[in-house]
């Protein structure tokens, strides 16, 4: 499988990368790990004439855990898994990263590529909604932060413009219990349905809950109503049922090779029920 021909660039700084993007407006694209982009290029679903490789751009890698947790866009899934600091501060990230693809893919695939890609099958976007993360984008006019919950517009369409580079994602230290529950056909597969849940408790009751779903709409779904249904409860069967029903109103899955709509809704209900139970058990 041969892609179309392209000019290749390996800039050393964000400024240099932005300059190349600006010079070839609409025809240039950045490549991070390439494990979503190259398959699309092989299928000729993406035709790019100028490919800007970010691997040597300084300042895009690394994990900083301080007031907030900040992760450089070029940090690979394998590097997320290797970070003890991240495992301690945001175990939800680890639980999810372990369920993404396989070792070889995790060695190349980056968190930035995973969230910027805009594929509803990617796991990190749902997670980012659950954690209320922000994405830092740098463009010709400077830098801006966009909330993950405002970033996704449609499959492969995000509020990032073609001349912007995602440099980092950041979020507050998550509190309480967590779970990422993913149903897939086999190890390494994209989700049939997945749920990210974070729950905090006070006085034995849920004080706040955040629920996000993966691959059940053309964008990741953060279900505010589902989280709200758990607040003030002890996550008993009625509360879980209410949370699941609220979530089912917010998703809109399509039929594909992972199954018909009714099956996806059933799987969504099951994974959310399990995720809530596990998150509650860890509060």
């Amino acid at each position, binding site marked *: 499988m*041969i892609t179309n021909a392209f*000019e*290749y660039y390996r800039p050393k700084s964000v400024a240099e990368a932005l300059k190349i993007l600006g010079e070839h407006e609409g025809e240039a694209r950045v490549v991070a790990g390439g494990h979503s982009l*190259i398959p699309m290029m092989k299928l000729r679903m993406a035709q790019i004439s100028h490919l800007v490789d970010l691997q040597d751009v300084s300042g895009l890698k690394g994990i900083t855990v301080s007031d907030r947790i900040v992760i450089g866009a070029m940090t690979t899934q*394998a590097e997320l898994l290797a970070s003890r600091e991240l495992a301690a501060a945001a175990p939800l990230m680890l639980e999810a990263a372990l369920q993404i693809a*396989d070792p*070889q893919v995790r*060695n190349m695939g980056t968190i930035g590529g995973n969230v910027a890609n805009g594929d509803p099958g990617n796991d990190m976007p749902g997670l980012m909604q659950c954690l209320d993360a922000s994405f830092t984008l740098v463009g010709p006019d400077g830098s801006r932060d966009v909330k993950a919950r405002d970033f996704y517009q449609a499959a492969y369409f995000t509020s990032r413009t073609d001349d912007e580079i995602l440099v980092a994602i950041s979020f507050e230290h998550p509190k309480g219990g967590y779970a990422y529950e993913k149903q897939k056909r086999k*190890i*390494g597969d994209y989700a049939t349905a997945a749920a990210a849940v974070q729950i905090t408790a006070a006085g034995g009751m849920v004080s706040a809950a955040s629920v996000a779903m993966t691959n059940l709409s053309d964008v990741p779904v953060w279900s505010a109503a589902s989280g709200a249904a758990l607040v003030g409860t002890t996550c008993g069967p009625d509360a879980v049922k209410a949370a699941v029903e609220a979530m089912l109103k917010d998703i809109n899955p399509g039929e594909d090779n992972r199954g018909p709509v009714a099956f996806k809704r059933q799987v969504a209900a099951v994974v959310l029920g399990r995720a809530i139970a596990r998150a509650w058990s860890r509060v």
Partner: protein
Amino acid sequence: MKKMHIELTINGKQVETLAEPRELLIHVLRERLGLTGPHIGCETSHCGACTVDLNGKSVKSCTIFAAQANGATITTIEGIAGPDGMHVLQNSFREHHGLQCGFCTPGMITRAWRLLQENPTPTEEDVRFGMAGNLCRCTGYQNIVKAILAAASELNSAKEAAQ
């Protein structure tokens, strides 16, 4: 499209070649450099037959452009045996019937070689999880897992004996 000059260190040797940026690393290895050990099974990032070691990490060389690999240090299956013959893993695959048709074997061994450096004392579960990017249509995996676990204990006994 103009070719670019690509320099790699492969199996300890410096090599140079000209390739179009869009050529996949697996194509450059097999067709320009004559290293036909790494195989093309699916060419769609799923099977792991094309696995090579790139700067100390297992990767699928069908999903990396030659241009991205420029300057890298690579180990392929051809570089795993030592001057004294087969690597412990290679013998272990033979001993434990870790292959049938052998098509997946170069990728399996190249991945297992890195896995045992990342985790020299894996459990069976660690091996299965660590080898999840490599598919085999013949063996049912049981004997591949057995071969890797046996190689791990042999390598560890050799290390202890040396100390």
